[in-house]
């Protein structure tokens, strides 16, 4: 809870600062755009968060989106499949691929980093090969109104991707924080051996997390495909997995596993998009986009680490020497997260 609060305050402060310097931040059109971005990036970030909670990692998200994007375009424009069939096929492919990741990791005992790194390389290459490196669009195919609405439409003024993100967050929040599966997932990520001794099928728990991540990647992928409306196989979704990992880590997930929350990941994802928006609005050269993001993530995680270590040390000191004066120091603003 403390972690989420810290990053939430950072998010609010950042928004306030940007709004103060450039009031355009608060224009409806800017906020709508921002929410759309947060939605599209947030959805797959939640999936990645689940994987990180198992102690794993998923690096192939961006490449998989490129592959799904070009396949979706080809299925609709070249193979003339029905919209529903094409969408289901995309989701199916994503789930099968991530199931395969999960099995390689849990049955063959390969390291998640390596399995998904190979996925990152392989899917990107495959996407470029099947398209002969040509950018794919959706042309004049009919019946795509609903999908376009999902990516570009608004519901009562709220962008659809954001609406979807909220829906998905509620569902994953219940799964992660209120269901048996969520409990097992945290147990597995925290201490796989003890989880096994308690009768949990840890391999299966981990595999399911990858499959969920794959499905959410498919949803994000479809949104991005219609949001950009053209899919360039070499660039589409490039490095998006890093946005997801950054969001999860900012939101309090530990790469060691067993730690994290849906709310944290949501705030983390939002923070990253606000940063991109900030670069735009404050007239910072857009080439510094990544540098700003890197710096803020580094400072955020560093502050969290230093503060929690200081808290620990103070507790240990208090336990060692029951010094009445120690109480004088604890009244300060030590819990303020980031400066």
């Amino acid at each position, binding site marked *: 809870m403390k972690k989420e609060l810290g990053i939430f305050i950072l998010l609010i402060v950042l928004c306030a600062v940007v709004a103060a310097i450039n009031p355009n931040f608060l224009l409806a059109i800017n906020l709508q755009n921002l929410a759309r971005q947060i939605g599209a990036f947030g959805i797959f970030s939640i999936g990645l968060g689940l994987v990180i909670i198992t102690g794993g990692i998923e690096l192939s998200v961006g490449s998989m989106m490129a592959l799904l994007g070009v396949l979706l375009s080809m299925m609709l424009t070249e193979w003339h499949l029905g919209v529903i069939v094409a969408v289901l096929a995309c989701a199916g492919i994503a789930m099968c691929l991530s199931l395969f990741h999960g099995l390689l990791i849990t049955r063959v005992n390969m390291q998640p980093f390596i399995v998904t790194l190979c996925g990152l390389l392989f899917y990107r290459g495959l996407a470029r090969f099947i398209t002969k490196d040509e950018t794919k669009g959706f042309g004049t195919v009919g019946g795509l109104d609903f999908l376009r609405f999902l990516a570009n439409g608004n519901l009562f003024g709220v962008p659809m991707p954001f609406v979807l993100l909220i829906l998905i967050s509620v569902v994953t929040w219940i799964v992660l924080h209120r269901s*048996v599966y969520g409990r097992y997932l945290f*147990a597995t990520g*925290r201490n796989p051996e003890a989880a096994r001794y308690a*009768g*949990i*099928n840890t391999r299966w728990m981990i595999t399911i997390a990858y499959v969920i991540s794959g499905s959410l990647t498919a949803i994000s992928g479809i949104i991005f495909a219609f949001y950009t409306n053209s899919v360039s196989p070499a660039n589409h979704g490039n490095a998006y997995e890093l946005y997801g990992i950054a969001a999860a880590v900012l939101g309090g997930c530990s790469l060691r596993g067993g730690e994290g929350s849906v709310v944290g990941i949501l705030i983390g994802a939002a923070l990253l998009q606000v940063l991109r928006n900030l670069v735009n609005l404050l007239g910072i050269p857009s080439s510094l986009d990544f540098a700003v993001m890197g710096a803020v993530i580094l400072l955020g995680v560093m502050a969290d680490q230093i503060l929690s270590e200081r808290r620990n040390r103070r507790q240990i000191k208090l336990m060692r020497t029951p010094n009445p004066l120690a109480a004088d120091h604890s009244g300060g603003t030590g819990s303020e997260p980031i400066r």
Partner: protein
Amino acid sequence: MPEPILEMSGISKRFPGVLALEQVDLDVYPSEILALIGENGAGKSTLMKILGGVTRRDSGSIRLDGQEVEIHSPSEAARRRIEFIHQELSVLDNLDVAANIFLHREPTKGGWLRWIDRRRLYREADALLAKLALQISSRTPLGKLSLAQQQLVEIARAISAGARILIMDEPTSSLTLTETRRLLDIVRDLKAHEVSIIYISHRLHEIEEIADRVVVLRDGRNAGELQRDAINHDRMVRMMVGRDLKDFFKSGKANGSTSDDRDWFSVRNLRTLRYPNTPVSFSVGRGEVLGFAGLVGAGRSEIARAIFGIDETTSAQVALGGQQLQITTPRDAISKGIYLVPEDRRQSGLIVDFNIRENISLPGMERYSRAGLINQARERAAAKQACEANNIKTPSPEMKAANLSGGNQQKVVLAKWLTLSPKVLIFDEPTRGIDVGAKSEIYALIRNLAAEGVSVIAISSEMEEVLGISDRIAVMHEGRITGVLEREQFTEEAVMRLATGASAN
């Protein structure tokens, strides 16, 4: 007699809740093989850790060559030419033999560049290996060597560091017979080169063979010593165990009401990963407590892990109440009412970062959930009840398990299984690292379980404990059950004899 090179006198050490060493004296003479023996937990390792600079003593003095010294760290011990070869090998299997031998003492060249002088490194390492009659090249990656060879590399490292006192903690515990012979030869050879050896072992036959003197510890105190001519197996056993059983167990003495049906839970031809060539068979009656005694590494924990489905096994026949069971995962065992309280509480028994409630409900989540969603009220209520029923001392079930004492942690592990009505409960070292008060509570719990008809298997390395809580005791030695003792045969000598590999008669 020459002057001792090492005199440890009046050494005491207290750990939270236990007095590990009380006024222990130990002298070592030049060129001597001194055997240090005692039951598990007698204080041998603690004493040696103090000498090796791993642990600080509370009181007492250490004199080297008559000079009083302080040994604060292992590197300081090394500077005083005391080397420690631990039971668990501490070699780096990603490096080669020479690199291991000269780790942190590599011959260098090139002045401040400190390049490793590879020629000299390998030449000196090879010379050393030849001296130990080891037929391996110093360029061999350590990972390619057998456990015994790796151990010899450790000895080579100690020698090359100029060891004058060499501490060997159970050096033969994982060696085969031939490898053991070889090691004993080398120990004798070291003695001839004026190294004094402190040799810790449970294998009394080896000690009969090589020791010049035996010092016995019992319950953290000196329990006597034997000179060369007086060393024999029976005397050593008597000195190790010679104490009265405390009335600790009186309240929870076996009730003798064991069922006639001693095959209620039976295990046939169980082959463990560690001892695949020695199939083990045994059975436990309904309401019976079967103790498993033996030395550390005898293969008892492996049996527990195999029954519970943690380790894969082949061809074991497990039956409960006449029904054959197929157990390949812990889930299978749990569904049949067979539970394990594992040896390593913090690593396997609990998720210490989870709170008490989450730990207790973990294996039986289906009881507290509907359609996959947790009924929090029911879970909380069950956890609260389990805390009260098992007398877990905590302000609330929402406390992290990490913050509990060892005894209370163990009660959480137990509570977890007791809420699921066990049929067979396996305890692996039920009271390791637990204070006396919690210990007696756990013994009472075990007796209650047996009285309710649960078949209990209790693996314990504490002699008193295994004699106190068991209705029958199976004693193991190197993967085999060397004998099963009935209550009227229970003596510490009988157990120790079987545990050290003597035959049943």
